[in-house]
């Protein structure tokens, strides 16, 4: 079965369906509903036997490159944070088809926002190439 990475972003991606403030500025009840939905998504994927992994990333981002022999790694905080394509986290799912991956992504995107209505957040769906990567043993 193909695996898909369903990425959530802090910033970047297509024009948002509608603007919304950061989570910490929502009504506390809406925050609870949002967290509860995320727990349900995970439980649902596990129950379906489709769940592989999910992770959240801290927003701080550092770009690094080789600095040359005897030089420290070169780092930068990256381009303008507002327009930067910044990944917030992901679900890794193992599913029957690409259609099923899109269906799950759309379900995640229906997560409740401020006021309780769906957030319509864009989810970035990427197929994982099968076979072990060279970094694994």
């Amino acid at each position, binding site marked *: 079965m193909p695996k898909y990475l369903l990425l959530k972003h802090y910033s970047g991606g297509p024009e948002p369906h509608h603007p919304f403030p*950061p*989570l*910490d*500025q929502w*009504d*506390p009840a809406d925050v609870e509903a949002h967290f509860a939905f995320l*727990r349900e998504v995970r439980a649902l994927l596990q129950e379906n036997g489709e769940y592989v992994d999910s992770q*959240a990333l801290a*927003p*701080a981002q550092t770009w690094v490159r080789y600095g040359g022999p005897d030089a420290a790694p070169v780092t930068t905080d990256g381009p303008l944070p507002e327009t930067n394509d910044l990944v917030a986290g992901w679900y890794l799912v193992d599913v029957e088809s690409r259609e099923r991956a899109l269906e799950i992504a759309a379900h995640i995107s229906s997560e409740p926002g401020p006021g309780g209505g769906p957030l319509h957040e864009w989810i970035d769906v990427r197929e994982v190439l099968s076979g072990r990567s060279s970094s694994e043993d």
Partner: protein
Amino acid sequence: MADEPISAWDDGPLRAYGRDLIPRVLAGLVRRGEQFDAAEDALQEALLEALRVWPEHPPNDPRAWLTTVATRRLVDARRSEAARHRREEEAEAEPRVDGPASSEEVGDDTLFLLFRCCHPALAPASQVALTLRAVGGLTTREIADAFYVPEATMAQRISRAKRTVRGRRLDQPGDLAVVLRVLYLVYTAGHAGRVDLAREAIRLGRQLTLATEEPEARGLLALMLLNHARLPARVDAEGRLVTLDQQDRGLWNRREIAEGVRVLQSALAWQTEARPPGRYQVEAAIAALHDDAASAEETDWPQILSWYDDLVALTDDPVRDDPAAVLGRAVALGHVDGAAAGLRESDRLRDVLGERHRWHAVRGHLHELGGDLPAAAAAYAEAARRATTVAERDHLVRQAARARAQSARA
């Protein structure tokens, strides 16, 4: 080497037996001069043999039985190794069977093994892994699970650690401070996976207090017990973090608190003018005061502040050397002298901790204490952006949303 020397005991009926026996037998072999990994392999074979033999013929002295069988295996292994070496005409003689590898003052096997696992040549992550394996008797799988890394990664970390300590003589008394730090790392690594590492650290801490008179070992055990007692109240049914002031104190484990206080008192009894209590005892005293309060409002903050004064006095430059102590003191100060005093104290840490979530979370708490809800909400939001666990981040997002909503209503 066998990948999983202790695996035969994982689920077997002899496991409870083995958890205490394995480290002692292993320590005996290593102290005698055997190499760490070879001794573990031999012990594993002895354990497999025990699984077969003991149900029919239980030994009088399981420890002596295992030591004898493991020694026999080591001799066999050395013979075939030596034969192979002769064949390969290796220049170096492999086995080393000369005298004890350690000095006499290392009293107990557990302590000896802990010193070995916490060898200063190892990185903290390796010290922790090796301690859990060799002293704790956990499997590589269990340790990998607890740290959320693949089993192969943890197996590699452990075998590299074993290679690092192999052949190194432990000819000076080990550094007990390092052992204590490693045990505390195990404790704070927490309760992930199927194994409760906090419980494991407490078990090892108990063993350590039997092996050394050092009051700080008891201080650490007391600290772990007094914190662990609050664990049942730290997370609610939905997995949400519950801060100390909001916890249902009826859920606290009174038995652990009583034991922690008893252990702490026995440690503090050792103090003299020349030898004030060390940091674990001081932190345990602070934890005991929290545990002692029937409600958050009844917390004895002046007493806690005075222990924090002692804690920051243990280092020359507490802001650099022990910022966590200064941060804790800022909270206590806020409760004793008012939020502004606490915030001023925390200002000293801006350069050191300004990028850490805990600093912002404390600022949020102090702003809230002082009634400045908008500032509290902003600080909690800053903290959430820097949180290092999902549970902490979600908690801080909730705090920010709550403080903002309350300030909007006010």
